[in-house]
């Protein structure tokens, strides 16, 4: 479903050699339809860059990205959005604060299609939005006409998740989407995420700082370090992994200092 081939991304190319940062170094990943992949790695390992290259907010220096067989490497972000649903880390990023819940959902509902001069909602659409919001179990179904800006961070992330998936995307990207939430809310949003992903059999990539979450969710795990995939496990191998195993992996790549950062993040 998603084929990433030989992707290289270098930052600060124009500066002197000391400042050059190789964010991704010939990364190749092949993700099957319906895979739920969690991606871990320390700060600067390249996980966010990877997601940004898939979503199109960054263009790679080399390599290609294919979604469902279509080469999207040079497709503009908004054109690529027809295949991709994305939830950002910052709860403020994924929604338009001054627009109502139903207006946000209406915009998202047309993600993959051309926007015309049709009125944004209809009775049927409202019913669909209500139904979807009710499935979040956050009591939002009665607040369709409320401005999104009045919702809490967790509620906004849940709505963003709904927006990213209301029109089933080929690939769902989650960029540390619970990192800015308090632990309890983060777990609620993760549970909702898992539910939506499983129910719709979505091909998903979830970047996270939290090793526990990375092990608990998904059927495949990738570990990035210094712009390379250093560990890749799926199925039973992933199921049997423990945090200790992951820490050992980190140790073997001699990144002790950064590992400490990750422990603190938990």
């Amino acid at each position: 479903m998603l084929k990433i081939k030989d992707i290289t991304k270098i930052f600060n190319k124009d500066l002197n050699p000391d400042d050059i940062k190789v964010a991704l170094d010939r990364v190749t990943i092949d993700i099957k339809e319906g895979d739920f992949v969690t991606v871990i790695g320390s700060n600067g390992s390249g996980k966010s860059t990877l997601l940004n290259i898939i979503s199109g907010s960054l263009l790679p220096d080399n390599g290609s990205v294919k979604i469902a067989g279509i080469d999207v490497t040079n497709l503009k972000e908004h054109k690529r959005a027809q295949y991709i649903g994305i939830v950002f880390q910052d709860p403020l990023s994924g929604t338009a604060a001054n627009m109502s819940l139903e207006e946000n959902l209406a915009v998202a509902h047309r993600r993959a299609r051309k926007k015309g001069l049709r009125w944004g909602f209809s009775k049927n659409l409202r019913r669909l939005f209500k139904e979807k919001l009710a499935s979040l179990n956050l009591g939002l179904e009665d607040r369709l006409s409320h401005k999104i800006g009045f919702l809490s961070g967790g509620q906004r992330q849940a709505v963003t998740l709904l927006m990213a998936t209301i029109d089933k995307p080929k690939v769902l990207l989650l960029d540390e989407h619970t990192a800015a939430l308090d632990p309890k809310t983060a777990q609620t949003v993760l549970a909702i995420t898992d539910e939506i992903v499983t129910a719709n059999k979505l091909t998903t990539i979830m970047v996270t700082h939290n090793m526990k979450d990375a092990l608990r969710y998904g059927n495949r795990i990738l570990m990035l370090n210094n712009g390379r995939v250093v560990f890749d496990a799926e199925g039973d191998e992933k199921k049997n992994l423990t945090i200790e195993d992951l820490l050992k992996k980190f140790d073997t790549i001699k990144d002790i200092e950064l590992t400490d950062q990750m422990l603190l993040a938990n």
Partner: protein
Amino acid sequence: MDIIFYILQDAIEIGLIWSLMTLGIFISFRVLKFADLTAEGAVTLGSAISIALILADVSPFIATVVAFTGGFIAGIITGLLHTKLKIPAILAGIISMTGLYSINLRVMGKASIYIGDAGTIYSFFRNLIDQPFLAKTITTLLVVVIVFNMLYWFFGTEIGMSVRATGMNQKMARAQGISTDIMIILGLALANGLIALSGALSAQSAKSANMDIGKGTIVIGLASIILGEVIFGKRSFKNWLISVILGSIIYQGLVGVAIAVGIKPNDLKLLQAILIAFILAMPLLKRKVATKTNRTGVRKHA
């Protein structure tokens, strides 16, 4: 009492005409969050085009539509400068505004033109109703009501909502498959079209166009928007649009009062500048006052 009546009458007559301009400023500054200075040139462009065309025996209705189109194109140019050539918003507006100065002079041929007895868009109702104020107000009100309904409809459509989403959160808009460049261009075009339309009505109401008509447009527009928001709120988009229109009338009322109490028209611009600076600083001032009272509050408890 008479003076109050005249102030009210002027506020409605002028405020309604400028409410179209205010709606334009609202679209660029509020909906798109784009500080667009094209506005100052677009007002003059609208008045110049409409008067010049009427002088050339074009029907006032068509002259007004062409004026709107002129502003629409000016907005497209500012939008292209910003999105395709990556020129910062303010500069893109300044470039268009500067260019429009020469264009406006060319359209008019000289610094000011009069149409004398030629018919205007106001003539139709003026011939029916033998009361200038009423005839004018009905005409303008009709235009405002049509524009209001079209705006309300447009911003509820898929494209209209995409323009609003773009103004609020470009990152989100792109992630939802919206071409933010096109929405910015479209929004600016619509905004400046309305601003030019307002200029066209104003010029036809005064039966003349001159190069100075656009001066202070943005300040008047912003002050009207803020007044409307503060007094009538912005709970929903419909409510917001209505607030903006009413804000324009109230602003003109305040200008009328200022003149009535003896402030010279020449000093008005300074007053406007001070007023808008004060209004824009309000949120900060409010916060400062709040923290101060908080602090004293704490001291009292301590």
